[in-house]
């Protein structure tokens, strides 16, 4: 009989139940969309921010000490300490190796041109193909780490193309203008260790100091600087988790200050400090440090974006609760005669409340399922519009939304249930 009554109420009061289901569906859809975006936005924002360059630099320990002592910029120091080129690939073998998006080594030297002027020359990877010991293969280099470079003339240097791998170079737009050269031209450079004629494949505009430099392959720069198999520094772009109190404590006081449990948590979370720590473990005699501005910007943007999503989710659920409350209260008011009758013929309050709540919960399940799929659609629309990519649907959102919907539905039904409990059959059946 219970299910006959529920079925009767649901099917013969379709319009009312559809209204309640639609209200729940709207709340569920917004909650689903916002929660999925919130959980996915970290990676999305990180990837967006990766377009602005590396967020970790790795230098030899000795150079780092000099930099700290004399407050020198890492690019300016001239100490003779180096890292080994063979160690670069170890970056991908750390615990958070999958979060390492890109990296590239640098060798800096000063070359003399034919007009006897000195110019800074940097050797690096452009799109270097790397086969790791783990069997993983990847392309790494500044092509993606300097994605904002505008190639005015020619093209990006392609290391994997025969002919440009050795002796190819890209020249900054200021230097190219001064020398009157463009892609296809040759540039003769010399150092105390040797001389070489570079073939200009592209002229770039970086909008900074790099416009006055020459960028060439790592091997060419090592040959000119006499540092074969050695590098000066590495820039790393990594997906990181915004810093919290634990990460700040580890960064300021050192990982040694953490309790074993905190240390484990910190080590197994992709904080920029824990990734730096793991890089240092992998590359001997190195110091990895975060590019603070980038790391902090990422954290701040992410925190604010996630806060916004949480607020929208809370507001949408609050709005749903109000809507459900109004609709269910109106429904109970409309059914006051029926409820009064059931009480008059001997139904206890909890049995009538049970029927009303079951009707609402069934409606909520239907609305919630519809809302979840609507939310999936909303999330994809937002993903495509804002991030130009789809939002990955996280399975953990399903139980969260289910629990939220049950809480919102029950909370929204409280005024109606209280009203139902107060109803006296004599009042509704006989008007007294």
């Amino acid at each position: 009989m219970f299910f006959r009554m529920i079925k009767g109420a649901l099917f013969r009061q379709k319009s009312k139940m559809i209204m309640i289901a639609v209200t729940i569906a709207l709340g569920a859809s917004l909650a689903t969309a916002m929660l999925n975006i919130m959980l996915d936005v970290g990676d999305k924002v990180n990837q967006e921010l990766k377009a602005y360059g590396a967020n970790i630099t790795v230098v030899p320990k000795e150079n780092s000490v000099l930099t700290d002592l004399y407050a020198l910029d890492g690019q300016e120091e001239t100490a003779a300490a180096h890292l080994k080129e063979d160690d670069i690939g170890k970056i991908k073998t750390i615990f958070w190796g999958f979060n390492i998006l890109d990296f590239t080594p640098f060798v800096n030297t000063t070359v003399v041109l034919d007009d006897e002027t000195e110019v800074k020359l940097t050797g690096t990877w452009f799109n270097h193909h790397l086969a790791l010991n783990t069997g993983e293969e990847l392309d790494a280099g500044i092509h993606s780490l300097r994605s904002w470079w505008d190639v005015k003339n020619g093209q990006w240097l392609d290391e994997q193309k025969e002919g440009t791998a050795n002796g190819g170079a890209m020249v900054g737009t200021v230097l190219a203008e001064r020398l009157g050269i463009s892609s296809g031209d040759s540039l003769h450079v010399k150092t105390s260790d040797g001389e070489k004629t570079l073939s200009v494949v592209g002229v770039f505009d970086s909008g900074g100091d790099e416009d006055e430099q020459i960028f060439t392959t790592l091997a060419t720069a090592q040959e000119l600087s006499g540092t074969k198999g050695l590098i000066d520094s590495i820039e790393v772009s990594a997906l990181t988790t915004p810093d919290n109190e634990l990460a700040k404590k580890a960064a300021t006081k050192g990982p040694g200050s953490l309790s074993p449990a905190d240390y484990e948590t910190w080590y197994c979370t992709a904080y920029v400090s824990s990734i730096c720590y793991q890089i240092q473990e992998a590359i001997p005699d190195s110091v990895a440090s975060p590019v603070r501005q980038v790391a902090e910007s990422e954290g701040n943007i992410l925190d604010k974006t996630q806060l916004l999503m949480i607020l929208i989710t809370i507001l949408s659920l609050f709005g749903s609760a109000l809507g459900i409350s109004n609709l269910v209260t109106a429904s109970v008011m409309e059914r006051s005669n029926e409820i009064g009758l059931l009480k008059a013929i001997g139904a206890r309050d909890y049995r009538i409340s049970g029927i009303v709540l079951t009707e609402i919960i069934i409606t909520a399940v239907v609305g919630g399922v519809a809302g979840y799929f609507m939310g999936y659609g909303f999330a994809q629309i937002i993903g495509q519009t804002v991030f130009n990519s789809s939002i990955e649907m996280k399975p953990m959102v399903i139980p969260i939304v289910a629990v939220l919907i049950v809480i919102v539905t029950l909370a929204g039904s409280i005024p109606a249930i209280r009203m139902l409990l107060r109803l006296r059959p004599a009042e509704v059946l006989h008007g007294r």
Partner: protein
Amino acid sequence: MSLLEIKNVSKIYGPLKALDNVNLTVENGEWLAIMGPSGSGKSTMMNIIGCMDKPSLGEVILDGVDIAKESGKKLTEIRRDKIGLIFQQFHLVNYLTAVENVMVSQYYHSMPDEKEALEALERVGLKDRAKHLPSQLSGGEQQRVCIARALINHPEIILADEPTGNLDEANENIVIDIFKQLHRQGTTLIVVTHDPEVAEVAQRTVVLEHGRLVNEIKNEGFEE
């Protein structure tokens, strides 16, 4: 012992006395009509006898229990076990069929039994309309469903509030015939009405005015 004893009962709403020191006794198997104009306290009386309200003063002894002193939970139990209610507005659940409306009463009493519910509908001549919704039934038919619902749990008292108030003459006669049949079977009937023709067929009639019992008439020509 009488089935129902009302002793010095008053119901007071602020300055208004809906019932004023009413005394009344109803015997087992008796058919009593309560008459009176609008506002005389008929509905208040029905609510108190039907355990849907409590008196402000006095005692209401139903089957040996003073319902004036019982809790709301106990009153619900008494209502469910001892009283069958018939309303002027029928008060059927609009999304349940006729037979389901009868079964609802069984559901809250003990166990729903469709066969028994159909028999109850058969007693009021509505078995063939069992699967119809209230909106598909005439007023008279709806009232008969209401009677079947009141009868289904074999209550000790049938309490009817203006049972023919919304019916035409033909349906009024059908309902009265059902009441006669119930009386012959030994059911105690209390019918609240302002219609003298309905009151005339009862065994005894009491008249309420301004909350007081002002007259009591025994129907000498009552047909057993």
